[in-house]
């Protein structure tokens, strides 16, 4: 994911012209991070205006009196002009204060603190599985099918991965729960008490990205193996492990990392479904309740949290890419 900032405005040009490649690169990333975060803030703020109905009425309850509604309107700050509301909203976010839930009257920050670690744990474990499985798998199959070898293996790999990547999360989740929890009774479901409880949800959430990333890694492996520098390495008679670990891996990892950010975003989306199948107490379960009850503060808080996570991960991936592949610094000019 390249959120390239091509601002050629005077100040940026002046600033970037005076910096070395690394500071210049970091500055650009920082600016684009800021722009996206600002957009996120505006979007979540606008949510209240886009949703039909009066938030004050919703908070006070349907059978509330006119005074009560007016009181809630004041408490929510809805009587203020829009720009004042927005500034208050931004200030609140800066203090990590997203208001309180209309329904449970719980502070949104508290909900997020309780539940976000669970979601992050699930998505993080998923990402770990994706990277640990799909990269070696893709490289292995790529190496075995290079230059049109092993046509059969290629057909099997392609059909297996295309089938798996077409499987929705709740299908894999249901199947896995049925096989490993119901039938074989190997792994627990619907609890977070046992440390093994994360296995099934994490596999369900990662199976689809594993398949699609393995395909990408295989293609990239084929691509790199066909490069001249691999022929050079072979002409130097390096042993196979050096050719693969030193010459192939960094170049393949670049591609894997580039879409690694997207994969993580997809995993976060997948957690919403999987958490509901496995009763995993993360944000995914909570956001559905919130949407169903039009509990604005909770929706705002959760969307912001997901959004910020995605943006931060993407920025981290960009920086990691620049570390792994020094060409990125030059190319992003």
């Amino acid at each position, binding site marked *: 994911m390249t959120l390239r900032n091509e601002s050629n405005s005077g100040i940026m040009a002046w600033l970037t012209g005076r910096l070395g490649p690394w500071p210049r690169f970091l500055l650009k990333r920082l600016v684009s991070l800021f722009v996206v975060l600002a957009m996120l803030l505006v979007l979540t703020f606008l949510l209240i205006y886009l949703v039909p109905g009066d938030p004050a009425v919703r908070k006070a309850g349907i059978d509330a009196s006119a005074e009560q509604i007016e009181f809630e309107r004041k408490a929510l700050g809805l009587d203020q002009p829009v720009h004042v509301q927005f500034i208050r909203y931004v200030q609140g976010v800066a203090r990590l204060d997203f208001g309180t839930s209309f329904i449970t009257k719980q502070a949104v920050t508290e909900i997020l603190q309780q539940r976000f670690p669970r979601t992050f744990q699930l998505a993080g474990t998923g990402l770990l599985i994706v990277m640990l499985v799909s990269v070696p798998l893709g490289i292995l199959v790529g190496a075995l099918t290079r230059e049109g070898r092993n046509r059969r293996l290629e057909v099997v790999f392609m059909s297996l991965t295309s089938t798996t990547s077409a499987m929705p999360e709740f299908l894999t989740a249901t199947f896995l729960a049925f096989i490993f929890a119901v039938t074989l009774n190997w792994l627990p479901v619907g609890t977070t008490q046992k440390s093994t409880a994360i296995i099934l949800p994490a596999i369900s959430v990662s199976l689809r990205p594993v398949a699609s990333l393995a395909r990408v890694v295989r293609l990239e492996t084929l691509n790199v193996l066909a490069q001249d520098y691999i022929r050079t390495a072979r*002409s130097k008679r390096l042993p196979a492990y050096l050719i693969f670990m030193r010459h192939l891996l960094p170049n393949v990892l670049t591609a894997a990392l580039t879409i690694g950010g997207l994969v993580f975003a997809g995993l*976060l989306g997948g957690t919403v479904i999987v958490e509901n199948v496995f009763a995993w107490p993360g944000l995914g379960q909570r956001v559905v309740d919130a949407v169903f009850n039009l509990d604005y503060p909770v929706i705002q808080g959760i969307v912001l949290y997901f959004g910020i996570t995605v943006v931060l991960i993407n920025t981290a991936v960009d920086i990691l890419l620049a570390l792994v592949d020094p060409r990125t610094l030059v190319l992003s000019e």
Partner: protein
Amino acid sequence: MSNAPAYTEVQARSYLAFWRTPFFRAFLSSPSGFLALFLTGMLLATALLAPLVLTREEIYQRNVRRRLEGPSADHVLGTDNLGRDILKRTLYATPLTLQLALSAAGMAIVIGFAAGAATAYLPGRLRNMGVRLLEIMLAFPGILIAIMLVAVVGTSAEGAVLAIGIAFSPSLARVAYTLASGVAGLDYISSARVLGLSSRRIVFRYIIPNIAETLIVVSFNATASALVAVSSLSFLGLGVQGTQFDWGRLITEGVLRLYQVPLLALAPALAIGITGLTLGYLGEALARGLNPALWTQTAAIQSRTWLQRYFSSEYMLLTGATLLLVAFYFLPWFSPDALDPNRTLVTGAKILAGDTNLAAIATGSQVAMLLLRTGAWIALLLGLLSYFFLRYRRFCAYLGLICGLCAGSYFLSFLLADSASLGTALASAQLGFYLGVGATILLILQVVSDKSRQTRGSPDDIPAPSQASAVEAPVSQAQPLLQARGLTVRFELESGSISPVNDINIDLAEGEIVGVVGESGSGKSMTALALAQLVPHPGVVSAHYVRLRGEDITRMSAGQLRYFLGSEMAMIFQDPMSSLNPALKIGTQLTEATRVHRRVSGKALRKMALERMADVHISAAETRLKQYPHEFSGGMRQRAMIAMGLMNSPSLIIADEPTTALDVTIQAQIIDVLREINQEQGTTVLLISHDVGVIIEICSRVLVMYAGRIVEDVQITELMTADKHPYTEALIAAVPAFDSDRDEPLASIPGRPPDLDNLPSGCAFAPRCPYVFERCRQEVPALLHVDDNHRIACFLRTEALEDAQA
């Protein structure tokens, strides 16, 4: 995207029946096309017939006494918590689910394509902003955006469709943008414009056919993900409401009772999975059908009808076996009186051991279940084995199928009748088992005999190079460093076999610089790769021998070869940018081979590296070693390549077009460096180039190659004076003067180089030769000495000699 010629109207009219059109042939050219057709038919039939055949009563009528039952004759897949038939409800939900998915996908496609195409036509700055906005939106998971949008538009079926339509449009917009901004700039569009075609004709004849493939695949993928997304929202309770239900909602009910009636969740989940696959296959097959590049190919392959191909191909058998496994293995589990899974293996072993006292441990239907599984496993095993290992896979796959069918027929009888007799069950179980054992033994025998035949047969596959050529020894002055006899490279392709290098003999003396010259396709680069044992797959190198320093490298093990060639031979390739690994520092790349082959490291290694860098005149070598290739200039990269080759002090450097990718002044530098190394270190250089000028400048001897053979072997000093091969004459005549264009050095040789898969019967150069006579078209001329230092393969030059000898 291919830029093959568009499908013309004339072609379309010449095919009468639609199933014989190239579109349909390409559509069915892979099993997925057949599956797509079949599954789409099933899906459409279900969607249309389910609401007609099934009454509302059957779907909604509660029957609490029969709630949460397993599969039975009345309810094939069992009942839900209100006693309603699971299968019927799943089928009944088909039209609504499809309708929702299609509307959401349609919306996403319309919004996305329109927005994407529009973005492509925006003025510069706005377009950049639009693209960046798209990228930002794409970074967020679609399902989360959809959930947020549902909050805005309200929780209902329509709301879900709207939310998904909007949330999934950015990815489609991105594709449409790329296509729209890419297609307009393509060469064939511009040439169509120049030809004066109208915009409408350009759009329909050129643009649409060329982007249709991508658009269709993307649209079908979008539909599949819309299906999943709609179902997800319904599953979460944010989609279909009230008494209506789609597959997603059925799953919600099922997940709660996964432990009691697993089919309640699995049936609709499977329905979603199958529909998703159908959409994927359909998109893939349609795209294949619309790709004109595949039409001629498939037409050639499909001499048999597609039906014949499918029923005789291993694809079908493998698919069949897999389906059998899934059906037979999982279905018995849902049976109310199925065995405890943990006990089945023990019981199975007892039955197969011939234990007839089964009444104690199992009932008839339980035995039936067991044999279904056994049959399924054997079928799958045979299918897989035959798919991967066998020449006679068809035979074995049929046996596997029979095993599966034995089991399957019994399964049917079990479904129809309530209980089954023990005798029949036992008989079919044993029949299936013994068939399976027999087939497995056959398979193993087949694999073993295949293997032994392969190892014995391999030397015969490559025709021995002619003995005559080995007799005629090449030019050699001093002690030969390299001697290759009968060097041949062969590629077995589907269209036949070709030999880019055909039975050549090379001798290189110690300290020589020998050039190899020829047009592209003459086999000169392949000769270099063959000498280095680096010919790409599926090329096969054969030779009487290739001796380097007297050791035959064709008889070395992989380990010996690696060590020996790693220190005795180095290669330099054409493009120094792509030949150096961009992700590794120059120092690492320079030293790694020495580290491995000579076990030198630390300071000594660094000192060596610095010396070699000095040899090739790279200044500030200390810092240069720490830099990456992209920080080097083109000429410096090539010198670094040469330094890398020199690290192990090889006796032979093979340089494959080392100057071609460089500009003229840099070329001279590289040639100087090569010459210095040759003079100072005595390294032999084999220099491959299509540029006769470069060869003349540096080499002492030149080998001229044409169509995989050496046609002339001559000293540079004689090159301008002696009688030469007509091809060499043409090459020299084509050497550019100072003022001519260096990009096209060989432009003035009339005719084209020959196709290697279609060589003329006599001399390969005969069709282009100005001196051609009858004998040239019938016999291949041998490479013969015309004097001590000069060999030519041309009847024009050697016929007189032959007469003299005779």
